[in-house]
């Protein structure tokens, strides 16, 4: 490894106009030469990534070629719909609201999820809420372990480490949400002869923070090369409402509010961005630690976690694998 002189948060600074123009040119080129559909569907969550993806799509294709899908469910944060509506309004794009609670109910999601939680918290029931969090990778040299946080009707929280089977059952049930949302995105894309624009940023894409055939599925992913800090820079340039730009990133997946850095990433996104950049550009742990105000040993643990996540989530990126290559023109 080599020390990179000049390593600082400024390395992630971009020229928003130049980058927006570059992305939009590429979106048009991909749509024209490869995707060959008339527009895009973007699922708006009220978060920064989907807002920027929608804004770039509008800039690239025109607002009449972009449809926003809003897909709340029973566990969604209350403000989700208001925020996504505000973005759609600011961009002047048509929206379709699909409440997915009924579909989730039909596939047995709520029952499956609650039953999985009851494997470790038998009293879990009406009026309770829950989420999964991980152990802090950067604070101790431990394997990642998963904890279930529950909150009862009296707002009292408790935390228990998840054994294998309840963990798998909870995640499997929860993945219904991303897959059902994607199914509806493709339904609307098909009926309009549109494509689906995915919304992962670089941290999510690189580190495998998505559900295969759920939010991981899309025809184009316009911001997958951008660090999250860069997505925020573009958001400001593109006029995304301040309420969304100042909101803490959440997964909006569990009934208890869950930050992305509680569930998947070992540090807040500003620090994760710089660690990932450092890892990609051979910046030493010492130089990175000095900039982030961490100990070099902590940064080495984050680097190791980055490498491990890349390895263990590699299969999420893979297409179905064949026994032998099938060639076509």
């Amino acid at each position: 490894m080599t020390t990179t002189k000049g390593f600082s948060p400024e390395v992630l600074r971009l020229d928003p106009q130049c980058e927006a123009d570059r992305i939009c040119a590429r979106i048009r080129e991909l749509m024209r030469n490869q995707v060959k559909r008339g527009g895009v569907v973007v699922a708006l969550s009220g978060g920064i990534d989907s807002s920027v993806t929608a804004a770039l799509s509008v800039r690239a294709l025109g607002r009449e070629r972009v449809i926003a899908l809003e897909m709340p469910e029973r566990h969604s944060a209350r403000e989700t719909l208001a925020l996504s509506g505000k973005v759609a309004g600011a961009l002047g794009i048509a929206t379709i609201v699909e409440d997915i609670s009924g579909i989730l109910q039909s596939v047995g999601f709520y029952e499956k999820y609650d039953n999985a939680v009851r494997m470790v918290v038998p009293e879990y029931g009406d009026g309770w809420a829950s989420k999964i969090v991980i152990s802090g990778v950067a604070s101790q040299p431990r394997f990642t372990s998963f904890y279930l946080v529950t909150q009862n009707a009296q707002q009292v929280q408790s935390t228990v480490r998840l054994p294998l089977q309840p963990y798998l059952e909870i995640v499997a049930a929860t993945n219904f949400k991303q897959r059902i949302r994607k199914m509806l995105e493709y339904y609307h894309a098909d009926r309009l002869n549109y494509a689906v624009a995915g919304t992962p940023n670089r941290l999510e894409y690189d580190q495998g923070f998505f559900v295969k055939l759920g939010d991981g599925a899309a025809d184009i992913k316009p911001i997958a090369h951008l660090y999250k800090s860069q997505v925020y820079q573009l958001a400001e340039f593109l006029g995304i409402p301040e309420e969304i730009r100042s909101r803490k990133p959440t997964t909006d997946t569990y009934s208890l509010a869950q930050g992305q850095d509680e569930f998947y990433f070992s540090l807040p996104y500003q620090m994760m961005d710089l660690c990932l950049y450092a890892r990609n550009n051979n910046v030493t742990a010492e130089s990175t630690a000095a900039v982030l105000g961490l100990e070099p040993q902590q940064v080495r643990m984050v680097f190791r976690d980055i490498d491990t996540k890349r390895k263990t989530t590699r299969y999420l990126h893979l297409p179905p694998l064949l026994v032998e290559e099938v060639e076509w023109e």
Partner: protein
Amino acid sequence: MNVKDEIRSFVVENFLFGDAGELTDDSSFIREGIVDSTGILQLVAYLQEHYQVAVTDEELIPENLDSVQRVAAFVEGKRSGVPCADSEG
């Protein structure tokens, strides 16, 4: 079979589909990509079921669980009451 052979057999059957390949007793599960975080949960469940060894939060560290050799030593240490490595140092 001794504990080390049993652990090795568990790893080969469950994570390597019966093909030990280049697995040695010192191969790092994580570095070699043999076991991921879900695999660690699987390993912990096996230790609990097979040896009645409970793994505390502090013991979930590579020093105890990142190779056949280390897991076997961890299990034997727990069974004999010898203190194991933990993340508090």
